[in-house]
């Protein structure tokens, strides 16, 4: 432990800690900076975070200094203000000041620092400025504007230290120095959009988000990526019912500060053409859109055999559904005595893992499903349940896209009811398709492959007539004369914590980094004893 004095106030920190972080902890806000990033090696190039240290004649940059016991640091003297302003002056000397067309405006470090420390008269005419590349696509998803760059080297450090792909570099020197991709290269790795997040200014902007929406109109909802089992924490930026972009949310336990491009761009699916917006029922000429009452009437008729008695039900769960939805489905199935088939075909939805974030399992909640007692299923199990006296209920599962035999088998069922978000392959085969809310539109939990339960929050409202899957399940239960008594995911979560073992960690609430669930023995159904002995937190 070491004590330092920051602006006259004592602060406890670790000996040898990075001074920048120590000051950030002491003051509650960071020093002005462009190049410092906690997950990247220190570059010390922007010179903005200068502080005065007692006994050191000249101001030093805090990001490249280490804490020493008894160190006395001053960050708010006139001298520092003057130094920072002059440094900022250099940064802005050849900046094009094209904030009106710049997507970074509103979340731009240059703008912020200028308002805090600048406010001087510019000394260079617009005509005298050095001109560099503008509007240069350097990759599938990233646009470069070299004039706006402050040469903080975050992007080059990211490509050389994190992805180790080395696409980017700083070329030329002096006034003419600029970032770019190396000749013949493009910024095309799966993490390229992280450079856009890293870029403190508008030099690197996302071609996906470009000009779509001003950032100050975006609302931010913390959520979790549904792209794979890693469960990267992300922020959904949305406005007026439309998601405009997703950004990684720092969580050192899961994804550090990063997120893959694939996961970021997943939000496009939310607004796809083939999003299921109203209930559909199968008709001769193809799916026909109907209202909920008619859809439920159709479900009712499917459930009623010719003789008048109620048919059997088999349910298929999904690793794309939230914990609450899966729990609701489980209780639904138990309540009406339905056969529980499982959450996915063995091995389907597995892709390639990389060594950074992407998991081979491309479903977000396989671990959650497993912990709730669902198992993976084989085409055989589907066949075993198939009979003309059974109705198949599918929750958010597009297994038909992965198994051709399964497709054939579906016709053996008396009827297929699918609760889904899109008009996908399974939905095409359904007798009744019911639109439910997607991961971005509902609250819920995903459990990632390491057993960390993380919260989703509803960001946008979703299609007007879509309902939450647990609500639909409750209503379907009512059709079968069964009252389940839950109304929303929160009620189900309470029920889950109260009734099932292994979820006790949720009882005290979840913070933004999620909570690690108790370890369970692999593949086994959760028993009371295994739940109590775990202790992974």
């Amino acid at each position, binding site marked *: 432990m070491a004590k330092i004095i920051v602006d006259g106030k004592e602060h406890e920190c670790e000996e040898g800690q990075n001074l920048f972080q120590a000051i950030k902890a002491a003051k509650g806000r960071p020093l002005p900076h462009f190049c410092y990033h906690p997950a990247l090696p220190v570059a010390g190039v922007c010179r903005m975070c200068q502080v005065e240290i007692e006994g050191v004649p000249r101001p030093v940059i805090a990001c490249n200094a280490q804490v020493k016991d008894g160190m006395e640091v001053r960050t708010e003297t006139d001298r520092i203000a003057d130094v920072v302003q002059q440094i900022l002056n250099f940064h802005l000397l050849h900046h094009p000041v094209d904030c009106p067309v710049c997507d970074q405006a509103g979340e731009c470090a240059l703008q912020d620092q200028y308002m805090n420390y600048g406010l001087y008269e510019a000394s260079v005419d617009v005509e005298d400025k050095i001109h560099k590349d503008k509007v240069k696509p350097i990759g599938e998803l990233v646009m470069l504007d070299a004039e706006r760059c402050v040469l903080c080297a975050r992007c080059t450090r990211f490509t050389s230290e994190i992805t180790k792909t*080395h696409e980017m570099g700083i070329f030329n*020197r002096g006034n003419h120095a600029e970032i770019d991709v*190396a000749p013949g*290269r493009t910024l095309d790795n799966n993490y390229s959009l992280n450079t856009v997040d890293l870029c403190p200014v508008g030099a690197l902007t996302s071609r996906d988000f470009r000009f779509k929406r001003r950032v100050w109109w975006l609302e931010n909802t913390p959520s979790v990526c549904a792209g794979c089992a890693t469960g990267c924490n992300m922020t959904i930026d949305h406005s007026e019912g439309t998601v405009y972009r997703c950004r990684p949310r720092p969580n050192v336990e899961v994804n550090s500060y990063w997120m893959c491009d694939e996961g970021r761009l997943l939000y496009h699916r939310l607004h796809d053409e083939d999003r299921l917006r109203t209930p559909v029922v199968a008709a001769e000429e193809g799916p026909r859109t109907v209202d909920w009452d008619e859809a439920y009437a159709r479900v009712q008729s499917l459930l009623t055999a010719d003789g008048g008695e109620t048919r059997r039900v088999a349910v298929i769960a999904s690793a794309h559904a939230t914990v609450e939805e899966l729990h609701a489905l489980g209780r639904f199935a138990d309540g009406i005595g339905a056969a529980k088939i499982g959450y996915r075909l063995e091995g389907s939805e597995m892709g390639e893992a990389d060594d950074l974030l992407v998991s081979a399992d491309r479903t977000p909640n396989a671990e959650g499903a497993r912990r709730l007692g669902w198992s993976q299923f084989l085409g055989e199990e589907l066949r075993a349940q198939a009979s003309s006296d059974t109705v198949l209920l599918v929750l958010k599962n597009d297994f038909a896209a992965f198994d051709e035999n399964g497709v054939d088998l579906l016709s053996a069922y008396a009827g297929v009811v699918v609760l889904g978000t899109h008009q996908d392959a399974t939905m095409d085969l359904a007798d009744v398709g019911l639109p439910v809310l997607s991961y971005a539109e509902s609250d819920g939990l995903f459990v990632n492959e390491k057993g960390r339960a993380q919260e989703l929050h509803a960001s946008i409202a979703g299609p007007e007539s879509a309902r939450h899957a647990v609500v639909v399940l409750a209503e379907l239960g009512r059709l079968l004369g069964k009252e389940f008594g839950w109304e929303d995911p929160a009620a189900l979560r309470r029920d889950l914590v109260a009734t099932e073992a292994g979820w006790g960690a949720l009882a005290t609430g979840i913070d933004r980094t999620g909570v690690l669930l108790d370890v369970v023995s692999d593949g086994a159904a959760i028993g009371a004893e295994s739940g109590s002995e775990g202790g992974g937190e």
Partner: protein
Amino acid sequence: MSEEHQDAVPEVDASDAAADAVAVTDDPTKAFSFSPEREKKYEEIVRRYPTRLSAIMPMLWLCQDEWGWLKPGVPEWVAARLEVPISRVYEIISFYTMYYTENPGTYNLQVCRNISCHMAGSGKITKHLCKKLGVGLNETDSEGRFRVEEVECLGACGMGPMMQVGKDFYEHLTEEKVDELIEQWRRDG
């Protein structure tokens, strides 16, 4: 600079590689090859530096000795041989002024333009050279032989105006002296 290089890169695969009669191969380390004595020097360089990154600069010098300038494809070859990122190689090439990515000609006339030489009349010399050779500043003549370039101080302030051609200094320049030198080089070819 990046634009130029992007334009230049495709030529490596097609015309340039073919012109140099190097066997077209998938292995980028075999795109070019040094003469035996430079190959020996290369070995020395690699051995001398603790990391490969440090070897980039002398390696590039070696290339420039071999071919006079960094022909298209050479930086890539350097990166492949040293197993360093190509971006690092280009960062270095673009940072330093004496790595040539364009052919500087047989005789690269580097006239000092710093204060001592300038006061002694280097500006006139430069202008005279350009006029005589029919080229602009930093331009190579049509035959690829002469190029006029202004450089910063070369440490011969007492002998200005001066210029450097290759590794030779020519001092106390006058227009006549320059004319003579050029005539001589023209004769030498």
